[in-house]
């Protein structure tokens, strides 16, 4: 029963992680470039022991066909593990804002954090800062294919971004917005402001340009919406909630059994 209590508690924790992931998905339903996350659980090692319990009975009296070597397994719950992120394409919304860029296909924009570290994002709601540098929604510099920030002098006329990420002003090429991809997108670590950081699990960033093999194209004047599916999120929430309640029932059953055991007195 104490083992059952631990198993049920592990189940409660796994469902809690699942509910947190669903809450994250629902909360970010309106976040550009957000990728839905699904918590996944694996079963943990159960407790095992020989299928023999009574101290009064010799092996010869074991039920037919059962030897002392039969292992029984009980307890051991579930553990929530690194959740799966759906890197599938989100929808596109036309905003007609000149610096709103959406990637249709593979790849992430490269940005530089305040500390100089590189980060990656699918959120293309960019703008120019006071100095004419292209920055993302959190003020981090958007990098070109050369890994340098992109600066525009607004006074020199209107700018345009082509599907391969080339930024032109009055027909002159200023820079090309760089993209990056990874061997394992699941291995990316969440960084500040919803941006992504490379890790040992993701492998190093593989730089590339929009429109080249393995990369998508850039659509100017549009934003990629969150790929959260509200119907899936709601169904998962109901499922996680029911499972949580059932695990709670198992905790209560163990508690009641323990209380019965406590009533035995010499």
């Amino acid at each position, binding site marked *: *029963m104490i*083992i*059952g209590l631990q*198993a*049920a508690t592990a*189940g409660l924790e*796994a*469902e809690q992680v699942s509910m947190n992931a669903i809450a994250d998905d629902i909360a970010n339903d309106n976040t550009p470039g957000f990728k*839905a996350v*699904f918590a*996944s*659980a*694996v*079963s*943990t*090692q*159960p407790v*095992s022991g020989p*299928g023999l*319990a*009574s*101290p*009064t009975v010799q092996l010869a*009296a*074991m*039920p037919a066909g*059962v030897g002392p070597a*039969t292992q*029984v*397994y*009980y*307890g*051991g*719950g*579930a*553990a929530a*593990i*690194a959740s799966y992120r*759906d890197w*599938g394409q989100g929808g596109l919304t036309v905003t007609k804002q000149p610096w709103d860029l959406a990637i249709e296909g593979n790849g992430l924009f490269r940005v530089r954090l305040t500390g100089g570290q590189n980060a990656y994002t699918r959120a293309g709601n960019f703008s120019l800062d006071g100095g004419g540098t292209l920055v993302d929604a959190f003020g981090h510099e958007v990098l070109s294919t050369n890994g340098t920030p992109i600066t525009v002098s607004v006074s020199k006329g209107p700018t345009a971004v082509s599907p391969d990420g080339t930024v032109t002003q009055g027909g002159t090429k200023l820079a090309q917005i760089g993209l990056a*991809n990874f*061997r*394992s*997108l*699941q*291995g990316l670590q969440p960084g500040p402001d919803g941006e992504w950081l490379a890790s040992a699990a993701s*492998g190093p960033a593989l730089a590339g340009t929009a429109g080249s093999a393995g990369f998508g194209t850039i659509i100017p004047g549009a934003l990629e919406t969150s790929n959260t599916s509200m119907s899936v999120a709601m169904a998962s929430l109901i*499922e996680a909630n*029911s*499972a949580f309640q*059932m*695990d709670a*029932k*198992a905790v209560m*059953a163990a508690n*009641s*059994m323990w209380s*019965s*055991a406590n009533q*035995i007195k010499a």
Partner: protein
Amino acid sequence: MVQGLYTAASGMRAASMQEEVVARNLANIDTPGYQPLQAQVSEFAPMMVTAMQGPGTAGIVQLLSGGYSYAGTVGATGGGDVITQTPSLQQNGIIDAVSNPLAAALTGSGYFEVQTPQGPRYTRDGSFTINAKGQLATSAGDPVVGTNGGPITVQAGAVLRDGGAVVAGGKVVGHLRVVTARAPNNLVPMNGGLLYDPGNAGITNLARPAIQAGALEMPQLGMSTMMTNLIEAERAYQSSQSMLMTTDQTVNAAITQVGRGLA
């Protein structure tokens, strides 16, 4: 020795283990590829109880110590019950379509093979992704074994096809290996939803595995059955506990009341 106490205690232990099995199943209701355990309760063989009676009865043997013993039997008494086996349910689960294009659900029997630092392991959990080495791997990062006996190396954008073919860049780069176990209950459950073959599970390759791509197998656990099992275990435990206390009262009565008669 008072046999009744041990019979009741074995009932409590069996009910407690039954509850622990149900708790494990409930905790894994959302675990892909989890095969629920079943608690199989068996009764110990009944044993004969011999009686001691006073002198003058047929069959009485006078002992050297001066007491009397009688070889006749009163009847059978139960030895209680025990959980003898906890086999995993060898039934197919519910196939759930997911957004992961590399997810694989086994719609028939068998297990995927996984390469871990500790050696080969088996699982029905097909929530596969690509690891940092560019290999098709479990969610823990261990490579999945292909039909060629090694990991399947893929690029980003790879997809799985029904039947287990892994397609990257329009080309088939590998096939998932699926094995079956002749004695699946000899497989030892480990952490991470992995199963270990201690050498007697009878692992053989499966030629044409039934794999559905982009889906996961979820355990088929009837909610009402689970709740009934839980209540059953809880009540069986309480009944055995009452029996233990009743036996204790009987023994107590024997000591205090019969003893008083002797004094």
